[in-house]
């Protein structure tokens, strides 16, 4: 019985891990930028919706 690690046969496997981290990083940063630049009165307005 010979068991070859089949992952060696997928080329460029590391790209999957790397691209996922980059994708997450990009979306997260975009999110942060938006949140901190968002209009304060609007945020207050939405924040109070449940209590209307």
């Amino acid at each position, binding site marked *: *019985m*010979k*068991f*070859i690690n*089949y*992952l060696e*046969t*997928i080329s460029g*496997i*590391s790209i*999957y*891990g790397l*691209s*996922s*981290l980059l*994708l*997450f990083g990009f*979306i*997260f940063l975009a*999110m*942060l930028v*938006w*949140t*901190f*630049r*968002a*209009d304060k*009165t*609007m*945020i*207050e*307005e*939405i*924040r*109070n*919706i*449940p*209590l*209307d």
Partner: protein
Amino acid sequence: MQVEQFYYDNKTVKRFAYAVLFWSIVGMLAGLWASISLFYPGINLGLPATTFGRMRPVHTNAVIFAFVGNGIFMGVYYSLQRLCKTRMFSDTLSRLHFWGWQLIIVAGAITLWAGKTSGKEYAELEWPLDIAIAVVWIIFGVNLFGTLIRRREKHIYVAIWFYIATWVTVAMLHIVNSIELPVSMWKSYSWYAGVQDALVQWWYGHNAVAFFLTTPYLGLMYYFLPKAANRPIYSYRLSIIHFWALIFIYIWAGPHHLLYTALPDWAQSLGVVFSIMLIAPSWGGMLNGLFTLRGAWDKVREEPVLKFLVVAITCYGMATFEGPMLSLKNVNAISHFTDWTIAHVHIGALGWNGFLTFGVLYWLIPRMWNTTLYSKKLAGTHFWIGTIGIVLYAVPLYWAGFTQSMMWKNFTEEGQLKFQFLETVTHIIPMYVTRSIGGTLYLIGAVIMVYNLRKTIKQGYFSANELAEAPPLSEITPIHSRQYWHRWIEKRPLQMLVFSLIAVAIGGMIEMIPTFLVKSNIPTISSVKPYTPLELHGRDIYVREGCYLCHSQMVRPFRDEVARYGEYSKAGEFVYDHPFQWGSKRTGPDLARVGGKYPDSWHYNHMLDPASMSPGSIMPNYNWLFDHEIDTNRTENMIRAMQRLGVPYPAGYATQANGDLTSQAAAIKASLKGDKIGVGSNKEILALIAYLQRLGKDIKAAPKEQTAMKDGQQIMGN
């Protein structure tokens, strides 16, 4: 502007609330029953339906899909109407949703008790019910989005985002994980095999926790906590970051359930990294909840609703701190397969989901019945009994899990394993007893709640349709100084749906595609052969009885496991396993290499009375396997189904399969006779023995097989 009058539908909320109360008691009773059978197996009364292997899925499904599921719908149907300032889109769909869901629950419980299971944890229901779940889920979706489109409030509050993400992700998870090939009305085989099946299953399993037990409940927290505390959420900005970070990261974390298994290493690492990152958004959410109460802690002392919510959010924080820790490989090496995991999930289930549901019920019911809570004192009693129950439940299991793992890994100075597996089980039985006491207390608390709420309902009057008024959604919206893309999304529910789907689908795809590509590349281990027809029947019995709930089939590459069970498991060994049966808990020993370890007669006696072969064993007797006949009418279909799934039986083998089945059964019968055991020639026990004797043997038998391969033996494997 003209103000419009309309009515909120409270009747659907009431129905779901009653369902929550009913199923909470049923689900907890099933859990208590299952927990008692771990120290007193005789509680099954000799019936197949009440053994641990069938009670446990009934318990988990009842708690997740019946108790929490109805809790989600109760909270969503109440809050969504108010956050959108409109009635639910369609009363008919609400009714169909409610009754459809309850029907699935009842059918689910009956079929699980009857042993109809697909053998994948938390996705055990068979294919007709999988289809029914998809249909009801779509009904819920149409109702949800219809309501959003008709709303009178221009902004979509963050709670609704969580509802949208829940809907779309659960739909995706359920459909992908349930792809299976029906063999008969109540039996199907998973489309995926072995490693791939494991990856899909735990991608589903982990995200069922994320998107069924967490995101919808965070939505409820963001609505009901401000309501109960009568103050807005601490930071709305934080809630936005919480949402996007959480759904984006959660979807990747599934492989942490498969550390040290035969799953590719890079997928394991990816799961670990994202699991660690999960701490940030989870704690962001927890702190946002707790900070909402700043300056209002005096109210928490007075108000039972807030007490329940505070403990729920704290438990959420504890569980989401512990989760990432458990995904560290060195911690997981200790915790996995032990009761530690059970303790961890119950902090989530009893603390986070349970207490949040109770808080919402105590808040909601007096309001819908236009009265006040019948007794705050009783609610306080419930709170304390419940809290003590959680502690008494979890602490012994943490202890048991850690102790057992340490015992498994203990070697003598001579380099021998210090403890037999059974010794590590009997050692922790007192912990099991204490856990059941904790569970009983928690259940008593819930019964007190049912009584208290019943009294509340009796003293009030119910408003089925609650009058409300709001101006219609104006086309001219006030323009704020800065408008950005997020503002654009948050006004558009359907776009929001698409973006959430993209966020979660990317995670799923990147995680799974490489492992699926593997299928074409995998150099299968040459000596690993498909199961014989008799073994396939045995495997079906193994799945039916829920053996995988106590026995793993996955030897991890640790010194102690290799010493105890044999060579560690390889990915190529599972290529014909539809579904995979790696398991997630070792209440009994691993069975990956049990084949050939004991004679047939040992298995025969062991299944008849486990304690006769292993004194002190807590495994129940499986008497019915000695009466029931193997259903040979199914054999042909089974083989054909496996062939369609890619298992390489020779063409036309389906018609000859029963011949091979009979001769293999006769061989086992003869071997039993050699040990003076008489058995009917077609009993289920023969199939189960055949399956167990095959497990893990293929790679052991490799060299011998190369020399002695004959026609027909190819199928038998060895």
